[in-house]
Each structure stands twice: as structure tokens, then as C-alpha cells.
């Protein structure tokens, strides 16, 4: 997944009023260089670990929504954890310019069936059968943020 907010590698953005770094054990290797580069004792910086689905963590949502404008957010961790965290951050008001998100490890792809609109789960396969209508789908890179899924073309 690419697009605004999502990144292939986290980059240090100096000059912000505060930094928040969110990670799990899998994402720590990505976050650590950012932490070391920014943690100069002058700008506020907080590092938090998460393990469970952020859906369940109301405290995290309240804490993020209490942050002020100008706060820069970094998120790194397993795909299935960072995706809902990204949506949570968007929901509480972080813009995609204010955050960088990096997914780590194997990633499950969601594939939208062009025929019946079912969201299928796929690995790295280029073609999959739709679990609902059975059509053979070519997995594309055309991505919808609304569906959080890639388009699956029906192969005729």
C-alpha cells in the first residue's frame, strides 16, 4: 500500500512542535532510528508501544485526540495493527501530512470483486477465485481507501 501517509520507509521531519512514535515489537526496528534522531532533549517526544487492536484501546484514542496541531505522528508495526491505527489517527484529526505509517512483515491483501463487490482476503497471489461468486479475479494494484482493498478484475 502506498499513498498519502503510508510510506516505504520512515523519514525524519525536523521542526515540529512535538513527536509521537507508536510501535509494536515488530515495528520497533523502523521506529528506533527516528527516535534516536529526534530525541535531542529539546522537542517533546513520546514513544508508546501497542500490542492489541487499537479498536479496543479507548485510552489511545482519547490521548491522540488531545494532541495539539503541529504534532508529528509516526506509526510502525504489523500490517493488521497499523491499518486500524492509521484510520483511528485520521478520525481524531491527524492529516496525512502530519503522519507517517509503515507496515511491517507479511501482508494480507484485501481484494474487491468487480462482479459481486465481496472483499476477499489474499496473499501475494496474482489471481484468486472470489469466495462469493467464484469468478477468477486478477489482483491489481488499483487501491481504494474507502474499501481498504485492491480491485480484482474479472478474468473472462
Amino acid at each position, binding site marked *: 500500500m502506498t499513498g498519502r501517509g503510508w510510506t516505504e520507509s520512515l523519514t525524519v521531519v525536523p521542526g515540529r512542535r512535538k513527536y509521537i512514535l507508536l510501535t509494536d515489537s515488530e515495528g520497533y526496528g523502523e521506529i528506533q532510528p527516528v527516535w534516536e534522531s529526534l530525541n535531542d532533549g529539546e522537542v517533546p517526544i513520546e514513544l508508546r508501544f501497542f500490542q492489541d487492536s487499537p479498536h479496543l484501546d479507548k485510552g489511545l484514542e482519547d490521548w491522540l485526540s488531545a494532541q495539539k496541531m503541529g504534532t508529528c505522528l509516526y506509526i510502525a508495526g504489523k500490517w493488521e495493527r497499523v491499518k486500524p491505527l492509521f484510520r483511528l489517527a485520521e478520525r481524531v484529526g491527524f492529516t496525512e501530512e502530519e503522519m507517517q505509517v509503515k507496515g511491517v512483515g507479511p501482508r494480507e491483501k484485501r481484494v*474487491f470483486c*468487480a*462482479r*459481486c*463487490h465481496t472483499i476477499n482476503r489474499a496473499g501475494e497471489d496474482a489471481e484468486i477465485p472470489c469466495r462469493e461468486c467464484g*469468478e477468477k479475479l486478477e489482483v*491489481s*494494484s*488499483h*487501491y*481504494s*481507501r*474507502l*474499501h481498504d482493498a485492491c*480491485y480484482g*478484475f*474479472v478474468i*473472462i
Partner: protein
Amino acid sequence: MDPLVDRFPFPFGEKAPHRYSNNSVPLDPPLSVEVTPTYREEVELKRRLLREVHSRCYRSLPGTEEAQWEAAQLVLDHLAGHAPERFRLKQEEDRRIFVNRVMEERREFTFRDASTLPCEPLDFAGRHVQEDLILMAQKDGELILEAGQLCFPANWSLAFKLGMTFREIHEPIPGFNEGGLSDQIERFLLRMEAGRPWVRRNWSLTVGRHLDTSPETIHRWGRQKKEVTPENAGSLVHLRVEVQKLFRLPRSHAVLFTIHTHLLPLEKLARRLEWLERFHRVVTTLSDEILKYKGILEFHEPMVRYLEGLRAGGGRKA
């Protein structure tokens, strides 16, 4: 003389080979809709699709109400202006009376009061025109597909593309992001002004006379591509042209696209020798990448053999 040929919006000029470009020109007269002799047939087909598969043909995001009312007002007003003997829109302050004599319908409603219509305003207006209607909201310097009534898509999914930016929508088109073209077109759309509409033509090929070439039904219409031979290409393969008209809506600042789809079988196209020559030049100079994207690759070879047979015979089968 064939009225279908006479009114067909043939899209290819004398010189240009096919390439993606910002081919919009000012729209004159500035009307968003056109009523053709197939009006009743096409409106009935739209309504059947909306009845049977509404969530495929109509989508809107919250917050689009104002733009929808503006779009509905503009479309119905243009319809009445274009064909006043068949359509009428009477306005008294917020009260509207819309009369469609072709469908023998009369609807009274209150502008900006959704409870006075049987469906959302864009959906309502779209049930009275042959055009598909697409609304792009403009937010933070980006255009976002936020509502649409799409019954006759050229193999794209409204359900999937809803909520996408202009760039995201066009991401699958080969070469669209090369040479700054997508930037150029996006800038053009962002700068469009109210009262100065534009029009462009977009083309593709369809096997069979199908207006509804949706990805949801490709298992039906798509398989016909394999049946094309040099002998039947003239009647099976149709040049499909979308006349897309672009309007800036002054209050909501959204952009309305009205899309009127026209189909012409190649055997009729070939009656005009200059059209045959231009069409042949275009389809024989497309890259495989574009042929695949446009869904032509499967029947390209028999179609070109058909065209070459015609050219050898001066427009008639050699």
C-alpha cells in the same frame, strides 16, 4: 443517409493518432443533456437497472446534498430548455413542478427538501435523462468522486471508485501519469469556472450493442469478445463514444460530469470512408498496453482484418 450515423459524435480528427490528452473544448450550446430518438428506450433501461441493482448504479457520500440539488436543478432546467415540447420545469420560489411528457410523469417537489422526492436529487434527475451523472467535490485542492448515477459504465465500478481522488481514479490508465498529463488535466478541472462548461469525447469499443458494460456483468457481455470474426465484426463490434460535459456548480463548487454514451456498429461507421480510414489508423497504432486496458486485445486481430477487407473494397466487403 442514416440518422444514427448523422448524429454520431465521431471522435477522431484528421491528424492526431490516439494519445491521451486534455481534449476538452468549450461547450456550445452550454447544455448538460441531449435528447435523442432512443430517449425512451434508454431511460427505461436506466430505470430497470436502478430498480434491480440500485447499489451498483447509484452511490453518494454524506455531505453531497447541496451539490446534488444544484446538479438536479441544472439538469432538469437544461432538459426543459432543450426540449420544451416534451419537458417542463416550473419554478415558484422553492416550489418546483417537473413534467416529463415522454414518460407521462409529473412531479411536484420543494427545492432542498429531500422528503419531497422519492429518491436523492441526483438519482431523481438521472432517471429523466439518457446521461450518467457524476459529481466530483473539490476539497483541499483535490477533486473527489462523491456521488454518481452510473448505469452505462465503460467497464468501471462506481461502487469501487467512490471516494477516490481524480488521480486515484485514473491510476490504472497506462501512460496517464507520464509527461505531466494527469497534473495538467487535474489543474484544468480545478480551475474550471461556473458558467463556462466544457465538453470532451472519450471512446472505447464494445462487442454487442450493450450500453450497460459494467464490470459487474462482464461475465455476460465480455465473453462475446471471443466470438468476433472478420465476417461478423461489422455488426458485432461497436464504437462507443462518451460525450462528457463538465460543469462547475457555483454554490457547492463541485464539478458535474454528464456522460452521454453513443454506440455505432462498425458496418455503419464504414459507410463514411474518411471515418473508416481514421478509425483504422487509430486502432492499428495503439500499443498492446492500451489495447489491453481498453479491452480490445481479444478481438483486435479479426476486427483489423475486417477493416482491411473493407478498405480494399473501398468501404464495401472485398
